[in-house]
């Protein structure tokens, strides 16, 4: 896959600690430590040979090593800045997925009971919410797009592919 150069990430970092290489190495090392902890209660070796904990530990150590090498290399070249963290544009996308997940078949979210709303509601909700991630989003355009996508999805998934995803249980019963 080809990516266009990332404009805000192409700048040199303000300090090597903000450089891509070192942050990547740190993230990896932390993840490797987490992996090591996650597999710590599995037996390393058994009397019959390899235990189920051998590979998880070996790979966790490999990941930590990769992270440490990456950190070491970052002194030679700290890489471009990781850029700004565009949470304002990323969170709506993730929130869209989450909203879809809890509304499609209904979900018990603590004290809140979400009824199964089906494709007819969950799809436009997810599209409008994730569409807000675009800087130039226009609500009217987005609404029309959501409507068309919803119709396509219902037609394709429910009727053409025959998958048992609820369409609008509160209205038509399936």
């Amino acid at each position, binding site marked *: *896959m*080809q*990516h*266009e150069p*990332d*404009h*805000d990430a192409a700048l040199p970092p303000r300090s090597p600690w903000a450089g*891509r290489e070192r*942050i*990547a190495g740190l993230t990896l090392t932390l993840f490797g430590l987490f*992996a090591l902890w*996650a*597999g710590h209660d*599995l037996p390393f070796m058994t009397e019959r*040979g*390899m*235990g*189920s*904990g051998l*590979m*998880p530990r070996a*790979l966790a150590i*490999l*990941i930590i090593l*990769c992270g440490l*090498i*990456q950190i070491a*290399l970052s002194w030679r070249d700290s*890489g471009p800045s*990781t*850029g700004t963290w*565009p949470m304002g*544009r990323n969170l*709506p*996308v*993730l929130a*869209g*997925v*989450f909203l*879809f*997940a*809890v509304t*499609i*078949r209904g*979900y018990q979210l603590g004290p809140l009971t979400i009824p199964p709303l089906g494709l007819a509601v969950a*799809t436009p909700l*997810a*599209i409008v919410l*994730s*569409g807000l*991630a*675009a*800087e130039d989003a226009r609500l009217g355009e987005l609404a029309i*797009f959501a409507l068309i*996508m919803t119709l396509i*999805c219902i037609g394709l*998934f429910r009727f053409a*592919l025959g*998958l048992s*995803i609820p369409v609008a249980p509160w209205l038509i019963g399936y």
Partner: protein
Amino acid sequence: MEALIQLMNGFGTALAPMNLAFAAIGVMLGTAVGVLPGIGPALTVALLLPVTFKMDPGGSLIMFAGIYYGGMYGGSTTAILLNTPGEAASVVTALEGNQMARRGRGGPALATAAIGSFVAALIATIGLAFLAPILVKVAVKFGPWDYFGLMLIAFVTVSATFGNSPLRGLTSLALGLWLGLIGIDQLTGQTRLAFGVPNLFDGIEVTTLAVGLFAIGEALHVASRHAYAPEKPMAISGSMWMSRADWARSWKPWLRGAAFGFPIGALPAGGAEIPTFLSYTTERKLSKHPEEFGHGAIEGVAGPEAANNASAAGSLVPLLTLGLPTSATAAVMLAGFQQYNIQPGPLLFATHAPLVWGLIASLFIANVMLLVLNLPLVGLWVQLLKIPLPWLYAGILVFATMGTIAANPSVIELLLLSGFGVLGFLMRRYDYPVAPVIVGLILGPMADNQFRRALQISQGDPMVFLQHPGSAVMIGLATLALVAPFLFRGLARFRQDED
């Protein structure tokens, strides 16, 4: 001869109306995603996995192969008319093709790319049909130690050739292997790394990982960047057709491109990048008009385009005969086989002969369809670039979520999908290749299995891997391939992008 009879039977399968329809859908989708920047055949097949799991395996695999071939065709269109290659294998095409388009020779550039792709894919598919049965005869004699050696080669080459450095590839692979450990250990029956979540006991679904990393990750990546202003594609002026001189200058590069693409695509270290670059440099050396290179030499389009299509067919050889994916798309296609409980490998040709040969025969048909679709309709495909990017990604997002919920209706699965999406986004940000994660998740448990079977046969003696000449050679090659890029920095330019 036996292959020929099987292939004829395969045409019987492939020409069934339903399968023709699947091939047509596949090549159209493939061309479309090839044209669109940022979306490749790997992402598309991943998105389609969850929605096809209830369909006929033959039909959907034919569609996946059509997408793979179509992606290779479509990529050249944007490379020539926009100078933004739709997929990595078309980077070289953009060098000369865009220059030709600037000089009013966009028509012949598109024509030589399309016809060259056709010729090369035809040769390579014939190669696939005849090489695969021979390889199967060798592979049925493979013991578990040989398979383990082969997978080691695949691990090393996948991490060495994807991405910007072997270290980054190795890191991605290790992540994938680690994710592959999650779930119940087949040997001890112990649950590993599942954190008490019942959904994780059966391990991580390849489709969830692939859709999360490719689709959600890419959507997050696009959303995180500033507004994207679409470029205006160049209008095709002048004749669409190639002159006699164009033909004379194109046919040899086509054949040479196919000769580079097919074998390199078939190697475990394959991919489409290396053969396209090799083809380009070769054509520049052999050309009678070396001064034209960089200013729109038709050989520089004909050769690399032929090479990238031939490599797509080549990478199906190890996938079908050994069950080894050598490109991102092949890795996702392997997941496609697995969702029907079909394991690619030498036995595939015995147990699912009609399916495999139908698939191979459909490649010939898809290739003809692509030629017809691409040459006269090129203007139509370029219109796709007018779709606003946010719409496209919103569509992908909905499709990804929908497919996952259809295949596995649970909120946990969607949370995993989002988690892998964030992982895919971070990996793109930090410039780590995504494909080795998927290869690791698929091949990790398989390698583990072969390793343990070998040790069971040898009663725990690890020397078994070095006593058999086949596995000894393969393990040696894997070690060499692991060390070489660190020793010879020059080799680093042989890398492949994903797809």
